[in-house]
């Protein structure tokens, strides 16, 4: 098997340059997709027959919720690679994910709460999905707090990576347990869109937003990754190259 690609990804200068080159390729498509998606969602899509215009929150809520889960998975996988193969670059990826992930988890929570008020009559209910999302936010916070508490960068990398990996083992268990927990009480069944299938003019903007948010994440990740790689790097030679 050819491992050169793996080593290439492990090499900071290569990653630094590659990330720099990739940023625009994700940033511009992301901006365009999101703008079209917003226009589609706010203007073109018809009002929902039950929720009226309130359903349009979905175009920011669902993408951010999806992104939060996606980012945690990315972070934990990168952390795992960093721990097992001692790849600095993988640690840098994991570290770059946390901040973005916490933001979008928070956005999904708040937009969800704002949607909940008109739909369920209250900002917050202890619904399984909501609870699990809240716990996800705390996993992100825990990860960042641990990083901040350790100031030796390499120690912080390894300790927080371990936490991320343990956390991902637990994420499905949390979901499962919380579902099970609530099953004994009445389940709020409002949490469905009025109809089982969405009309195309509602669906397309949603898909665009999902795609746009994902592209956006990769773009931001590449920028943060470059910063993290630089901060970790001690080899002077290529630093000089990339800085001048």
């Amino acid at each position, binding site marked *: 098997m050819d491992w050169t690609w793996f080593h290439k990804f492990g090499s900071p200068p290569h990653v630094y340059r590659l990330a720099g080159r990739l940023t625009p390729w994700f940033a511009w498509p992301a901006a365009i997709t999101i703008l079209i998606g917003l226009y589609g969602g706010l203007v073109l899509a018809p009002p929902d027959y039950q929720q009226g215009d309130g359903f349009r929150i979905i175009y920011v809520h669902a993408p951010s919720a999806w992104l939060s889960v996606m980012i945690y998975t990315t972070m934990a996988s990168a952390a795992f690679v960093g721990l097992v193969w001692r790849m600095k670059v993988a640690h840098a990826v994991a570290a770059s994910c946390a901040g973005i992930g916490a933001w979008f988890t928070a956005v999904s929570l708040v937009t969800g709460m704002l949607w909940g008020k008109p739909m369920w009559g209250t900002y917050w209910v202890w619904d399984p999905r909501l609870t699990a999302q809240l716990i996800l936010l705390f996993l992100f916070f825990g990860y960042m707090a641990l990083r901040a508490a350790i*100031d*030796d*960068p*390499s120690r912080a990398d390894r300790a927080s990576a371990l936490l991320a990996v343990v956390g991902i083992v637990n994420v499905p268990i949390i979901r499962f347990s919380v579902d099970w927990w609530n099953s004994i009480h009445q389940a709020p069944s409002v949490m469905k869109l009025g109809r089982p299938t969405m009309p195309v003019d509602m669906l397309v903007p949603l898909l665009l937003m999902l795609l746009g948010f994902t592209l956006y994440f990769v773009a931001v990740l590449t920028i943060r990754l470059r910063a993290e790689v630089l901060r970790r790097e*001690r080899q002077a030679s290529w630093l000089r190259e990339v800085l001048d």
Partner: protein
Amino acid sequence: MYKDSNLAVSRWHVFRGERHVLRGLGFSLTAGRCLQLVGDNGSGKTTLLRSIAGLVPREEGELRWGDVPVDDFATLHAELAYLGHDPPLKADLSGRENVQFAVAVRGARSAATLTARVEAGLQRVGALGFCDRPVRTLSAGQRRRIAFAALRAFEVPLWLMDEPATHLDVVGCELLRQLIDEHLDAGGIVIAATHQDLGLAPHRLQRLALEEVRAS
């Protein structure tokens, strides 16, 4: 006893935080020899000892033990004992209990050998008079003797000692010299960071002077 012990360190680079403390250092030691580390405060003696023990990760470099490169420190750990600035003792246990547990933790052995080794260690360092009192009530020098007793009872070839003469009186310093001498006689290897004269025969002693890195 430990005939074929032999240690070689090369191209050894260690960072502490952002500081490049050890820059490509190397040395080698064979059975029955002692390396004395000297160097100004902050020159990296503690860092070197801890990185050889695998407690501080090295950035780069090779460590060979018995001519085999060591990658995973787990194997080396069974062969070495590290004595840092402060003796690793539980204040609430007696000196004897401390030594007993320290030895027992290093692997399953029959109760009889364990007791015999602990007893021999305590006697050798002259701790029989106070080893049954809680460590909390011992003086600094008495604690160090308990730690020496444990070190001896471990019966491992490689000793890493960080300023071993700290807190010792005149008798204690002589005891330290004898302990090191006996260990070298048995074919052991010692790396000790200290400015005091260890009083060893010249052919057994190697000196390594570290220099402080002036940066940031």
